[in-house]
């Protein structure tokens, strides 16, 4: 186990551990803060995989933007801060069966393809220029359509937030 592996397991632990807290926490603020660490762990994994652009975007957009927005949303919404989220368990038997089946098959998937994964990624120079160029050439259509999706979401948000006339 070299340094790479140790760092990998550290970030993986941060990501998975915080994700568990997000799911099981009964306090919505704790869940939101745990989400911050989960995103951070993922950003660390991106850095390890030499996806520098993705890592920075992850921090800027998810931690800097979306999460802060979410915390504001939680704090500005009346009576949400102190209220326990309803975490009752319904339909426990079907849920357990479904979770076991899905979990089992996914473990099977990753176990059976584990051997085909090669070790550490090869060194690549910074990825940002290549991503920028591809977004403007071979991926221009998804890039533009994503902007339309955002416009639609913006209109929708404005419409829902608008006061009743």
């Amino acid at each position, binding site marked *: 186990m070299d340094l790479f592996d140790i760092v990998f397991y550290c970030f993986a632990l941060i990501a998975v551990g915080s994700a568990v807290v997000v799911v099981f926490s009964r306090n919505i603020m704790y869940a939101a803060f745990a989400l911050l660490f989960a995103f951070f762990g993922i950003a660390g994994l991106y850095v390890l995989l030499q996806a520098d652009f993705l890592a920075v975007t992850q921090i800027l957009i998810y931690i800097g933007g979306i999460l802060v927005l979410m915390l504001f949303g939680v704090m500005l919404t009346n009576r949400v801060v102190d209220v326990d989220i309803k975490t009752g368990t319904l339909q426990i038997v079907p849920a357990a069966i479904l979770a076991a089946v899905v979990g089992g098959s996914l473990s099977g998937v990753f176990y059976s393809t584990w051997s085909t994964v090669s070790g550490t990624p090869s060194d690549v120079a910074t990825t940002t220029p290549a991503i920028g160029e591809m977004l403007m050439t071979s991926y221009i259509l998804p890039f533009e359509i994503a902007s339309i999706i955002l416009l*639609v979401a913006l209109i929708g948000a404005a419409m829902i937030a608008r006061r009743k006339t």
Partner: protein
Amino acid sequence: MIEQLLSDLSFFKPELTLVVTFLTAILTDLVFRRSPVVVAAVCLAGFALTGIFILGQNGEEALIFGNMLTVDAFAVFFKVLITLSAILVLVFSLSSAELNTPGRSLGEYYSLLVALTLGMILMAGATNLLMIYLAIELSSMTSYILTGYTREAPDSSEASLKYVIYGGLSSGIMLYGISILYGLTGTLDLYQLNQVLATGDINDFTLLIAGVFTMVGFGYKISAVPFHFWTPDVYEGAPITITAFLSVASKAAGFAVFIRFLKVAFVDAGAGEVAGGFWTMLQGFDWPLMVAIVSVLTMTLGNLVALWQDNMKRLLAYSSIAHAGYLLMGVVVMGNEGTAAVLIYFIAYLFMNLGAFYVVMLIANKTGSEDVEDYRGLAARAPFLSLSLSLFLISLTGLPPTVGFIGKLYLFAALLNSGWIWLAVVGGINTVISLYYYVKVFRNMYLREDEEKKGRIEVGAAQLATLVVLLVPIILFFFYFPPIVEFAQASIRIFGTP
């Protein structure tokens, strides 16, 4: 590269027109705040222009924008279908009492309708998993907003929220499936995916899980069991116009992307033309059997639950789930005949389902009710509406003299010719079950009297004209069906496949 992109634009005119229409509609809405009819006119003009450009693509074949999108006969067919239903739904919206209440701004409604159409049209041609995902997301996102457009109705917001949750979950599962597929094959392009799969050194089990996860997204779009849970609530809570649009166009787009995914990725591209028009599937999992099981579950559940419904929108929602099951029977065949049958059925489904929802809307405009019980004695109050609804329901059942019969005939013929006898039998039994709940509506209208005598229901000349436009194909294409059959058979050509 740039020259290539610029020349690709000439194949992108319909979509480009929709984008321009969408932006123009938003700007028009800012100027003509008080009269949404202007926005509707802009959108209608945009749809008409889009339709003209789509028809101009007839016979063209190309892969554009770095293999993101394709133009082929199959895509053109679905684009025509989606644009046609968008135009009809726009016309419906103009006379919907539910939408045109004082104080509601309808400008965004019309512009979002254009964005929804754009998403569906992109779904019809997408050949890259990234593009497929974005197109599905664009149409889902717009659908969520439009479902909740009548916010003051309590079930509208509830429907919208449920739609967001189910939609988010299934698109998450789909994205996960796509990511596994990408990890497995190293590509998102369906054609390259096919080449990698054809080499045969792919772990079958992983492929199965990734494929099933990816298809969850398509199953949700066409509301196949077990991804149908959102359908009844959303169809009931959304404005009827949106329900009608989702039940026809959204389903059509879902089928387009599903059939294209199956055929481009999982059919042996090197096998060439096979006798009888059946596709040679690549090694691995038995996809036809899986689709057959989903099809049986979908139509049986749709029809059985529809028996207990007493709200017309819910009844038609379950009926549309059942129809997704019938349409899946055509996919099971995995051949040219089956695909042609699906396309023929979709032409019939467009007119009969939009028609049924339109009549329900016209009745609800006057009576304010969608309850089947309130349809008692309707034949006396609104003879023409009752007659039209009966014809649409007969067509949905699949009985002559309506185009629904032609659709079912070709579906069952394709099944029998390919040896899926048991599936055809299940489909036949389901048709009989469906007759029961369609007849229930018919019986209420014609055979039962309303205790309290209410006045006649009058509809305007424009509404009657729209209704006639929907009724004529229902009858006409029963007696003279070669045009639609030929159109469908010419439209099964998918770019880059045998």
